[in-house]
């Protein structure tokens, strides 16, 4: 700004520059051809012959190999609460299998139960499904994009129940997003492409070469453990916003469109005891996180429905042993409390471990 004692001349410069970059007049069909080339060509790529990602049987193989009696299904709520080593110390080696993925919600849990647990040769005695608040009847929550591909990898070609529930529950935006996904299946290669870039970045870093396909960033996870974070307000705000979004829920209206009845039927047919475990939201200094009347009503109805249909239900909300100091960000439990949280789980649900 120092030598700018006269009014702006940049706008004129910019106009000259814009003039230089301007496309010469063209006929509409030329523009249409250009647009077709831009938007149609990427849609021609098909990652697999019929578009669907192949079924990932790695969890199924592990369940078969382990022959576990207790299977836990869930997301990071499960991962931060249940410690496999503690379970093994208490219940014996290979007693349990933890089937989890980041961000998994009800659709993924349904597919995991159906195609991994029930499809296994050795049927477990009890399956524990971890969930928060109303997510069991929110079929489309975390079902698109990268979450959707996780569900797809746990699905076979024909999944009528999942297809029905999704079709009935999607909003028009979710449906459009899903349809765009079908139009551009190249997106299913996103993880591969991202891995490739990360691998390339990590190629010459460190003393040894990282084998292709191994996520490089995971080597540095310890540096970013939740305990190293300066504050957790942001994560909490985000969690609160997500929570509020799902508070207004009508159990009776949602249930027929959810995958919950299917989960119960699958477990009943397979002779497996299904136990739904509601995790406690991050409490406040004054006690458990406040619940809206709608949520209280919803949970009461959910409990009655599950118990009435032969499933188990346990709610950790308000547990006096789960205080604020056990929590880290959002609803995650501190790593140092993971073993204690597992012990608490075993005590509270000891009836299922006889």
């Amino acid at each position, binding site marked *: 700004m120092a030598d700018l004692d006269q009014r702006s001349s940049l*706008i004129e410069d910019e106009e000259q520059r814009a003039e230089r970059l301007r496309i010469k007049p063209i006929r509409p069909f030329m523009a249409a051809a*250009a*647009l077709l080339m831009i938007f149609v*060509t990427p849609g021609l790529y098909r990652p697999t012959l019929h578009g669907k990602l192949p079924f990932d049987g790695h969890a199924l193989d592990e369940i078969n190999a382990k022959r576990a009696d207790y299977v836990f299904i869930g997301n990071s709520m499960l991962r931060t609460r249940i410690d496999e080593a503690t379970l093994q110390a208490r219940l014996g080696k290979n007693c349990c299998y933890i089937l989890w993925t980041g961000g998994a919600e009800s659709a993924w849990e349904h597919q995991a139960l159906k195609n991994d647990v029930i499809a296994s040769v050795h049927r477990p005695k009890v399956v524990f499904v971890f969930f928060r608040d109303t997510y069991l009847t929110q079929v489309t929550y975390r079902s698109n994009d990268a979450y959707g591909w996780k569900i797809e990898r746990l699905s076979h070609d024909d999944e009528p129940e999942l297809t029905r529930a999704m079709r009935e529950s999607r909003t028009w935006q979710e449906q459009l997003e899903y349809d765009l996904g079908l139009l551009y299946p190249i997106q299913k290669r*996103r993880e591969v492409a991202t891995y490739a870039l990360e691998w390339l970045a990590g190629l010459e870093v460190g003393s040894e070469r990282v084998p292709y396909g191994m996520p490089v960033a995971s*080597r540095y996870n310890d540096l970013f453990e939740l305990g190293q974070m300066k504050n957790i307000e942001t994560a909490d705000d985000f969690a609160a916003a997500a929570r509020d979004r799902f508070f207004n829920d009508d159990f009776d209206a949602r249930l027929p469109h959810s995958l919950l009845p299917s989960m119960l039927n699958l477990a009943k047919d397979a002779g497996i005891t299904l136990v739904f475990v509601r995790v406690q939201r991050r409490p406040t200094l004054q006690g458990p996180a406040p619940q809206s009347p709608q949520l209280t009503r919803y949970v009461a109805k959910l409990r009655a429905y599950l118990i009435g249909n032969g499933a188990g239900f346990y709610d950790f909300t308000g547990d006096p042993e789960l205080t604020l100091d056990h929590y880290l960000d959002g609803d995650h439990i501190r790593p140092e409390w993971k073993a204690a949280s597992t012990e608490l789980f075993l005590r509270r649900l000891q009836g299922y471990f006889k």
Partner: protein
Amino acid sequence: MIFQSLDFLIFLIVVFCAHWLLPWRLRNLFLVAASYFFYGYVHPWFLYLLWFVTIAVYVCALAMDTWTAHRRAFLLLGLTACLGMLGVFKYFNFFADNFIAAAARLGVELSQPAVRIALPVGISFFAFQGMSYLIDVYRGDIGARRNFADVALFKAFFPQLVAGPIERATHFLPQIERRRELRTEACLEGVLLMIWGFFKKLVIADNVSVIANKVFALDNPAFPLLWAGVLAFCVQILADFSGYTDIARGTAKLFGFDLIENFRHPYIASSPVDFWRRWHISLSTWLRDYVYIPLGGNRGSRLFAARNVMITFLLSGLWHGASWNYVLWGGYWGILIVLYNNFTDFAPRWISNDRLLPLKVLLMFLLTNLGWLLFRETDLAQLGRDLATAPAAATPLEWQAGLYFVCLVLIYSLPLIAHMCLDRIRARASDRFAAAGFDSLAIRSAASMALFGGILLLRAASSADFIYFQF
């Protein structure tokens, strides 16, 4: 409504078709309505502020034209409306918090105000645009417009409403008033520009933001992690903001408008002054024309000129956000420019040697990164610790991780670097460039196809709001 949403895609298609199907006299009115819908889509109450500023600016400008003897009074009234709104909605919490903290230091305990005021998106942009119109009318650069729809569209045109570029009435109002024709090549140009903007936002900014967010969430990041995070933020903020500008400019072209360019490869600037000719051009020229020059510019003593630079840049910092780190950031740039101006007067001649240009660019890039650290770190105590972090204290794993993140940021930045190189070549040898066919429609379409494919393949798992929305 945000650009990177399906809602916007549908909105854009509907508004584009309806706009060009309507008789041309109704088009501006329709765009005003569409812009209000766009702005009020999530929080309709934000519209009241926009309407307030629009009406205040319209009425005061007309009054200046009508009662010329009281021009100054009406100017002040209009400016008070714009600045008053900014003061209440953007700075009230900041000043209240600081007042309470200062009182506490003096031993007076004051309670927090009962209400916290939410910051409406884009408030600084449309307030500044309104002020520029008032000042231009006051100076006689343009006449006050009687057609309310024209002024309303100038204030609310949806592509640039929430994050600029901050348009000038002298540049934008004539475009609103003329009869716009649907030009195929302009629309195609707009689409290509939008694709490039979306690529910058969804692929570059959103991916490197993961690194920056991770590092700045750490309690005490080690030296290599900290500077890898700063580099990531440096790339993120450019890709994010210039991406927004490109989408805005591209969208405007679909409706027959040309918005001013906001960025010209700022990271190849060779001096602080050069940087501000390339970074957020619409804001820096606004501050220059409406603050720096009226203050006296560089006429007068060195001290007087330095004072003007410092005031301008402190205001620039405060414009960005109601937080001390932004003020610090503005002050940092002010000091750099003052030092540079005085240094150039006394520097030996060899300093201006062209061969030193790469070194100057590198030095400027490092200084810019230091600036971004001040900008990104909102906690001043943490900032102090960051600046005191010693390289020797880092572990080998931290060095390895830092280096890895730098490599990843560089990989994601490659399209930006390639674009910069192409632009440089094009500017220097535009005829040869065109002759070689690099400007041909086929090449540009192929490049855009690759970018669109890149968006599908490489976009980050989640997309955050544009950084400049908060300003």
